[in-house]
């Protein structure tokens, strides 16, 4: 089994998923951890900017900037530049999340099998990410995206609920 840096992959995927909610949003993220059989909730704001994303975890005083393929992590106002060891794979996933943000179905169909009904869009990966992500479920309300669910192969489940636009 190929060991990949799942953290980075999924973290990027998370960034992208949230980026689809437009310019700047408040979000709540619920992570179910299969290994521990426990869930955890995080809250914050996400801004979708040119060439990247900015995320603030308001409750943790931590933020992440992902611009021009460089990921920066700020904790207690100290910037920590994260290494680019897996930059190649991150960029691949960055594509997916941009795709999700754009919600361009034609482009989505290049990387996913797309199944849709009135409220949901179910994406099954066709490319390498199928090794890590089983499915992505997007839920809409009145044509606005309300939640994204990442169903992972290791049994973990990440649900991101979007509450409101803040700018």
């Amino acid at each position, binding site marked *: *089994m*190929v*060991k990949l840096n*799942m*953290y980075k992959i*999924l*973290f990027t995927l*998370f960034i992208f998923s949230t980026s689809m909610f437009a310019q700047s949003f408040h979000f709540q993220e619920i*992570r179910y*951890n*299969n*290994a*521990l*059989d*426990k869930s*955890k909730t*995080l809250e914050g704001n996400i801004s979708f900017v*040119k*060439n*990247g994303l900015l995320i603030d*975890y308001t409750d*943790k005083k*931590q933020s992440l900037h992902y611009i*021009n*393929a460089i990921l920066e992590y700020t904790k207690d106002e100290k910037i920590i530049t994260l290494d680019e*060891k897996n930059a*190649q*794979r991150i*960029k*691949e996933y*960055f*594509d997916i999340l*941009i*795709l999700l943000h*754009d919600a361009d179905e034609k*482009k989505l169909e*290049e990387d996913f099998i797309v199944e849709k009904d009135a409220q949901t869009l179910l994406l099954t990966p066709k*490319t*390498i990410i199928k*090794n*890590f992500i089983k499915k992505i479920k997007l839920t809409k309300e009145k044509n606005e995206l309300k939640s994204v669910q990442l169903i*992972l192969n*290791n049994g*973990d489940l*990440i649900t991101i609920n979007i509450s409101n636009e803040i700018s």
Partner: protein
Amino acid sequence: MKYLNYILLLALLVSAFFLKEHLHISTNLASLFAPKEKLQELNIANKLGYSNDILIAVKGFEYSAKTTVRELTKELQKLEQVTSVQSSLAPSLELQLYFKTFYPLLSDFNHTKQTQLSIHQTLQELYDTQFSIFYTPINANDPLGLFKLPSTQKLKQGSYGYILRVKTTVSTSQILEATQLYEVVKSILKPYPNVISFAPFYYTVENSRAIKKDVQLIIVLSTVVLLFIYFILLKNIKLLLHTLITLGSSMLFATLTSTLLFKEFNILSLAFGMSITAVSIDYLLHYYFHHFYSSSKRVEKNVLYGFLTTATAFGLFSFIEIPLIAQISSFTLLSLSFAYLVFTFVFPHLNIPAYQEQKHQTLTTQKISAYFVFSLSLGLFIYTAFTLKLDTNIRHLDYQNLNLQKVEQTFKESNTNRLYPKIVQANSLETLVFHLHSLNTSPFLLSQKECNEKKNILKNYDFLTLKQTLHLEAKNIGYKPTYFDNAYDFAMELPECKAVTVDDFKRFGLSLYQEKNIYYTLALIDNPDKALSITSILKNATKDMYKELMQFSFYVVGIIIILLIISVKRKFIYALNYILFPVGVTLFILSFLGSLNLMHFFSLIILIAIGIDYGIYMANSHQKQRTSLAINYSLLSSFAAFGVLVFSSITALYSIGLTISLGLFFIFILTKLMK
């Protein structure tokens, strides 16, 4: 006999038609400059596609840039000349599958024995990370992180944007194929304003176009000067026609003979040789102005001496171990000999109207002694010997394509992963892989021997005990009891080790070439000193060429002095000045202007060839005014052939033009000033 000139040309054209299958003109410039032992290396490098890649950069990192990368990849993969397209986005699916299958054998395995304590600590650290803001997935198959894939040499990108590397079958020496691919790639990239591309063969295409334009201009200029000489000054169309036929026949004869004699006769040698052929016009002019064609003489002694001395000089240079000079000299020897024979033995039968004497103003000037000119020339040579600087960079001779150089620089700055090619060879693929690994490259290529060795290590490792301890500690910390049930199973179900194949090399985009049971590939290494560098090979070769050229020039000048003594006897200092003075003053001026390149030196050799004839004519002339007139017209025709190159924007041609123009000017001065 009066049709003999036409018959000769026709015979040569017919020969060319029948011999066309055997005539090979090489366009490989490296073969002219590189020493023999390095030539093979360069040939192999070319076969391995050393300079065949196209680099394409898509500006920016936004999604539209990625879309462009995908679109371009698809388009480029359709091209027949493209073997692979590698982007900085992701490895291919085929590669990913390969990594997955051979993961335990490709990975660096930490086979130190894991204690209960170390297992507990690792699992505890992993458990703690689950509560940070970062989502850290747990690898249930290898929670202790015992397996690590070695890092690859991927195509990295700098600040510019995404980069694509397109491997092609086209090299810099294939002008036709390079032009076709250049056109297709440019048309694919045209709709994308934010995309730039570069390939070494772009220089071949763009520079050859610029050179073509330049040469066209020069041909026009040259033709204008020649027409001026013949129509305005000589007013003799028949002479012009026969002269052009003779020059054409001489070049054709030399081309046919040279391409049959030399295994790889180069196009550059051909071009130079053809230009030098124009020097033979001075035989004709000397005959014409001295009424040789209307006299009963069979041979004109001065022209014969001039020809023999020039022929001896080029004959000697044809033995030099510098392919370019050897080829040019041989070609010149053949073409000048042919032209001399035609001008001497055929032209008297062509009924060319005799030269009509015209009144010419005699320039009365203060005459300078030959000994003074000789001393001055020697002084200039000695001064130049101490101040001379040599330019050993062959690339400086080319057309300076500033736009492309700028693009190339952008790629150099953009690609932060600086790797340099090195040829690796072995008598089997297995050994080749071993050599690649010893250079710390291509870690994902697995030889059968290495594969079996790793397999043995993994087979002998006690994974079962490890799993038991892992279960126990995971449960104690608080993990789900069944979560690590399948841990390390992948390390106990190993794939079969197979011998390395050609396909394995292809999979990783590694070029492979086999010749006489030896396999060659190009490894990318980070040490430029150990890498293959055509620039440094050519630089070293050029240094050696300068040395050899100097040595040979001494021998040739020695022989010329002896021949001049025989030809002009006591007046040999006077005749020698026609070589020493123009060469000495030109060298002095050139060294004053900057460093001297290879083309300056070639031009000085041509200047020697021109100077020898004039020296002999002037030294032995009883009709100095006529001889001087013949020389002046001859100088003009030489200027038409070489001097106009001074208007070229290509350094190599400009250097020749400048050197010859200066030399011709100082020969002219000499005809007026020296007594």
